[in-house]
């Protein structure tokens, strides 16, 4: 009989936020400009220099990310989405761990729920850039309500 030295993950917490409100002037996809990062020492999350909020996650670590993009809307009727993108401009599908938000609305007379938290649950095999973008409404993204909370798990 043999015994291994049992190993567990090193877990670190990271938070991304904005230092000021962000004006959103187009209903097309607009990158959320995260510019502030804080977290446990040694984490593998970074904001890409000059990337206007582009998030870089390190290879071979496990990431559980959730958060919200909160907008002071210009319209009382329009609503907005928050979706994940790769740096090549393609939207990341659900099947790759990118869970977008869904509007709270009524389609006809149906009574709809809402899903306003975005999630990204990934294990990149190479350092990978991720972008969170909002669309379908203009207004002001609020620094007080736009944040991502990241749990990072890595092997010792």
């Amino acid at each position, binding site marked *: 009989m043999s015994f291994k030295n*049992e190993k*567990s993950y090193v877990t670190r917490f990271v938070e991304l936020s904005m230092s000021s409100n962000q004006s959103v002037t187009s209903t097309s996809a607009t990158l959320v400009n995260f510019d502030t990062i804080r977290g446990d020492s040694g984490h593998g999350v970074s904001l890409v220099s000059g990337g206007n909020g582009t998030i870089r996650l390190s290879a071979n670590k*496990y990431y*559980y990310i959730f958060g919200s993009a909160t907008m002071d809307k210009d319209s009382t009727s329009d609503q907005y989405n928050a979706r994940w993108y790769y740096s090549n401009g393609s939207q990341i599908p659900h099947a790759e*761990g990118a*869970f977008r938000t869904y509007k709270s609305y009524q389609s006809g007379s*149906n009574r709809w*729920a809402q899903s306003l*938290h975005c999630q990204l649950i990934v294990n990149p095999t190479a350092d990978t850039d991720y972008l969170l973008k909002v669309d379908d409404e203009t207004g002001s993204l609020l620094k007080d309500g736009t944040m991502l909370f990241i749990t990072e798990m890595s092997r010792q």
Partner: protein
Amino acid sequence: MSYSNFTDVNPLIAVYHDSNYSETGGTMYMDIDTSLHSGTISSNTLTLDYPCTLRGDWYGYLSSTQNGSIINSQFNIDGQDKYQARDHVSGYGGGNIGGPEVFFGDASANVNIKARYRTAGSSVTVSTYRFFPRITGILMK
């Protein structure tokens, strides 16, 4: 006898149902068919090899004729309903039912994990959007 290192296990959980669907009834369990990381799905039941913390949310609707047929959602773990918050439809007003957008649960290893609708009535039709319910979480050692 062998022992596995926990670091040989993917600690992430991300589960959903990959198409729209509707169900009618009183006590209904949500359908799930896709697991991106850890977790085995059989008959809309998720099992995991380690204890875990779970987060769920649901997106869909009730028809207007079902107005007042309260729907919120919650986990059912090892046969027990969990009440750590309940999601609920935005179209419902009045009464004393409220809840956040998400619902939570905690499960031991190798137990049956389900998500269910909670309704007022025995014949409520619930329409669930593609990619929901979302069940996510992290395994613990």
